[in-house]
């Protein structure tokens, strides 16, 4: 479709979507823990912005609520919790060596293309940008998952998980004027609890393994005699 036919706000949505995608790539590529957390926070903020725009474009007021919710939770709350934990565990300087960064990013790109191809058959229903946004959000989800596969820093894995949630949220907002409010609230609640639990687990893993390397969590393996 042609961008010129779209309103400025809608063009804005596309730009933001592109930035969200970029943020996911940052998340995958960032070797410094703190920076990774920051890129996650940025992603949250961008999603909130998108929500605002969509709310404006389609004047669906309840989206404003969820926009605020997102801002508080994804852009501020969770990153703050993670920061707190990182400081508590003295991991500010934590760096993780990516094995084969080039390959990792290449696969990421592949996933983006795949998700675009995957949603092609979904013909546009009403709102022009739908399909492309869905493609982006699917890409964000897959990238989040890929981030969890590629990185073995536990906290970064959690960030990947959270960014999957971001992708879902984006899909919900952009494709279908947002889910019913009660669902939104439930999701938000779950995410919050999840974040807290993650915190608890970091501490426990930390005190059991003295490191947050996911590859060290391999006692329960059936490969050979334990």
């Amino acid at each position, binding site marked *: 479709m042609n961008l010129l036919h779209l309103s400025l706000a809608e063009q804005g949505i596309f730009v933001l979507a592109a930035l969200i995608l970029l943020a996911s790539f940052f998340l995958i590529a960032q070797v410094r823990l703190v920076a990774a957390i920051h890129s996650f926070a940025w992603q949250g903020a961008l999603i909130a912005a998108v929500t605002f725009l969509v709310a404006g474009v389609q004047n669906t007021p309840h989206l404003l609520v969820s926009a605020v919710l997102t801002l508080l939770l994804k852009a501020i709350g969770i990153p703050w919790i993670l920061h707190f934990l990182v400081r508590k565990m003295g991991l500010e300087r934590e760096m993780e060596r990516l094995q084969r960064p080039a390959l990792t990013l290449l696969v990421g790109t592949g996933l983006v293309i795949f998700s675009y191809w995957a949603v092609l058959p979904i013909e546009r229903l009403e709102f022009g940008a739908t399909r492309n946004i*869905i493609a982006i959000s699917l890409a964000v989800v897959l990238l989040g998952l890929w981030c969890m596969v590629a990185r073995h820093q536990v906290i970064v894995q959690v960030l990947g998980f959270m960014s999957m949630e971001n992708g879902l949220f984006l899909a919900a907002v952009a494709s279908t004027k947002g889910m019913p409010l009660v669902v939104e609230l439930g999701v938000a609640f779950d995410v919050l609890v999840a974040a807290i639990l993650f915190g608890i687990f970091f501490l426990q893993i930390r005190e059991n393994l003295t490191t947050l390397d996911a590859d060290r969590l391999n006692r329960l393996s059936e490969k050979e005699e334990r």
Partner: protein
Amino acid sequence: MTSVHWVLVLPAVGIFVLAGIPSLAVAGWLNLLLTFAELLAALALGWQVKQSGVLVLPGFYIDAFNVYLVALTTFVGFTTAVFSRPYMAELVDKGLLSRRRMRLYHAMYQGFLLTMLLALTTNNLGILWVSIEGATLATVLLVSLYRTPEAIEAAWKYFILCGVGIALALFGNVLVYFGAQPVVTHPEDGLTWSLLYPYAEHMNPTVMSMAFVFLLVGYGTKVGLVPMHFWLPDAHSEGPTPVSAVLSGLLLNVALYAVVRLKMLASPAILAADLPDLPGLLMMGFGLLSFSVAVLSLHRQRDIKRLFSYSSIEHMGLMTFAFGMGGPLATFAALLHMLVHSLTKSAIFVTVGHATHIAGTQTLEQIRGLIRVQPGVGWGLLLGVAAIAGFPPFGIFTSEFLVLSATIQHWPWLTGILLVGLGIAFAGLFRQIHPVVYGPAPEGQRPVRANMLPVLIHLLLVLWLGLAIPGFLAGWLNEVTQLLVGEGLL
């Protein structure tokens, strides 16, 4: 306030009350009472549904399908509570658990039940998702209750894998919502089952098939379908035994329930566009894969609880296969199998719990001569395994028999695989359990304070179902079958 609300309010209250009660004994009994009350409420609900057919309340939608699972859930919840009271108390006496954790345990036990029941009774697919995620959150702490490195690792994997799975399921939900927009009048209703189901065949097939893929992978992770099953053995083996019992007996069922519900939504849409029944085929494929992987894995286990968690995967695979195959016979069989499997498996986990207390370990090599040490536990385990291996006159034989006969009718060549699998599974189970129950008693093993009542009840029920399926149950399952595949069996 109808029985539905009672079914949900009781556990909700239970969470906070039990979290607050310091006394262990009181909490144990209270937990027992609450579960019993829930059971009664569930039966009342069942009665109500039996009278009035489908029951649609604001926010709730109760038909024969979920009410029978509600009853099953509360029943197993109750019997497991009966077992867990003395069992957990013994753990505390041994000093393996602090009283604070016991409060957490009891609270989360109720929380788990709450999420299960909510997931079953809700009318909104979104809430369904939320409560299944909630179930993960409630049980993850139970799995890590012992705080051993293994427990924490298991809980972590459980958490992450199920979290990711659930997230994918949510994406599926979004797609359903998206696909629903054109067919529902008010966009808000896009996830309301009662409004969505009638228009299922008008939905966009492509969207629905894509949605179903996400939902299958998502909820399938919770069902324990291969290759998303990796969390399951870990969580079952490292958590406290009552938790393993309810995970195997209930959580998997509820997840499968979700998958089936969404298949009911997706299949008509796809069939309406006369494409092959993709959801059914996918479920059959996953079911068969899980079944075959699980039966082979049985041979390699060294931990008794891992062993039985794999047998859970096997049976969930069988059910998924049957549901996927569709048709009244297979569906009836799958429903029956759900029932008997939950009963048998939770009974087995109860006996396994006692066995591990007797031997003081979960390692198969070190649990020996149970029948000598404590005949009750030994025979319970032996008979339970015989039942789960599909020996008549226990009920699992009946359901497997029906699954097989349905397979012979529709996919004759798959029957061979199933039979070979069943043989291998049998060999795997028995060659592990044989030395555990038989043989001379090892040095220094003492009988424990065992409460075999739940086992007895469950096995008797399974035996009853094997000898004769009571009319009302048959009628009930038949209603469900009608609901799921349009035509009944009787």
